[in-house]
């Protein structure tokens, strides 16, 4: 039965993609505009950019790797700052009260709004890191706080009765029990960080990167390549998300799986 369901799922997926491409082609035909390429033109552009490279000679894989590298740095910094701060804020309500008035408004400022300030204050790689950090930081922070606060008090009491000190309780009870939430925060954070790549590369100045590719070809009014860049961002985001989901499933076997 499960096998049949799987095959059915795959077939339905293929069907919906086919319909999507068909409608896209139909719209492109009916508009007949040089600025709206159909799927066929985009595939041609995809092959061209992948093999021969863009006007500066960078191929699609090298654009992708550069973007992934930048996001990895920004995301890494976000994890290194948000997780310890989140654990601390989750444990101490005084720290929470102190930081909430600062953190809560900041988290609603979109990354694009930070562009002017980051141009003034930062240079080089730090601009990318900062803009991606801003995007990835808050999901990780909020999930970490929520996970820490949800620690079962009886587990903490249990450790205390064995004479555990507070650092042991944090590292051996609070952190592992918050880990599933932290991981889902990391997954969301990576997704948001990845979506900040276009904003980050708008100000980076380097000719390489998927966001830069989109901006370059938007200025040249070559929309087929713009769409290639968009699709690449979408697919890489999907793969990253799926990667973390797989790790989560492996890591948290102890969580009772709820079957829908």
């Amino acid at each position, binding site marked *: 039965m499960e096998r049949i369901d799987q095959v059915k799922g795959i077939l339905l997926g293929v069907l919906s993609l086919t319909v999507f491409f068909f409608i896209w082609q139909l719209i492109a035909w009916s508009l007949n505009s040089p600025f709206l390429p159909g799927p066929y033109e985009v595939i041609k552009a995809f092959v061209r950019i992948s093999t021969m490279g863009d006007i500066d000679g960078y191929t699609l894989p090298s654009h992708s790797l550069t973007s992934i590298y930048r996001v990895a740095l920004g995301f890494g910094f976000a994890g290194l700052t948000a997780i310890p701060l989140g654990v601390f804020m989750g444990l101490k309500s005084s720290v929470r009260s102190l930081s909430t008035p600062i953190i809560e408004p900041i988290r609603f400022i979109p990354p694009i709004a930070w562009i002017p300030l980051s141009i003034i204050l930062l240079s080089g790689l730090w601009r990318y890191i900062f803009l991606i950090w801003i995007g990835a930081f808050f999901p990780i922070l909020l999930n970490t706080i929520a996970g820490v606060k949800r620690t*079962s008090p*009886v*587990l903490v*009491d*249990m*450790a*205390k*009765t*064995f*004479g*555990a*000190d507070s650092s*042991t309780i944090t590292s*051996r*009870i609070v952190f*592992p*029990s918050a*880990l599933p939430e932290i991981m889902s925060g990391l997954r969301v954070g990576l997704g948001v960080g990845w979506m900040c790549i276009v904003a980050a590369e708008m100000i980076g100045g380097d000719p390489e990167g998927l966001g830069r590719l989109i901006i370059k070809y938007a200025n040249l009014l070559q929309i087929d390549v713009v769409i290639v860049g968009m699709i690449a961002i979408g697919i890489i985001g999907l793969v990253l998300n799926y990667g973390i989901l797989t790790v989560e499933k492996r890591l*948290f*076997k*102890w*969580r*009772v799986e709820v079957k829908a």
Partner: protein
Amino acid sequence: MVTAIELNSVGKSFESGKETIEVIRDIALSVEEGRFVCVVGPSGCGKTTLLRMMCGLLQPTKGTVLVKGKPPDPKKNRFGVIFQEDSLLPWKTVLDNVKFGLEVTRNKGNINSIAREFITMVGLRGFEDYYPHQISGGMKKRVAIARAMAVDPEIILMDEPFADLDAQTRQILQKELLGVWSRFNKTVIFITHNVDEAVFLGQDIVVLTKRPASVKATVNVELEYPRARLSPPFISYREKILKYLQEEITEL
């Protein structure tokens, strides 16, 4: 006889906003080493608070709690506490859960083999690599007992440990607990609201009043183990304690 736990006119109140809630009033109790003492009382009377003061999780507002002559401190004493709720670490296997207590108390010796020995003692050999969500409620309690016993505790404190279990599992675990107790001869403080359980297990039964709790009566159960639940003396002990409790409940 050496005194394991001594409570001298212990009182405990909690601040809740402007109100002060008095939970325990003037409890005096002395438990000799190796005794099995059951504490019964109306629900919500402060039994858990009492137990938490005995292991140093809470400090009394009045009076003193002494464990072997000194105020209890989990960093110095070794307690084996078994909670009503599931207190196993869900991300650790049965073996690692039992090892947890040994690691935190910095037990010397081979932690692995000690843990395995106690898992075997509670009848869970072969389940070492299972996670808590893969075993039943009764098995989880056995793991908790193994974890508490493995640290070689000075005192075992149990807070309605079998309350969430079904009747059969409950009775099996009561028998097993008596087996473990007679083998290691530890002091046990066992909190319950179940009179049948108290008479089955306890050498002494301390009956508490309703809140603020104080000692209403102490009953010494002079019956041989294993006790027959249907024997006339067992039933008369039950009735005696039930009568004490009823007096407390009808006064509400």
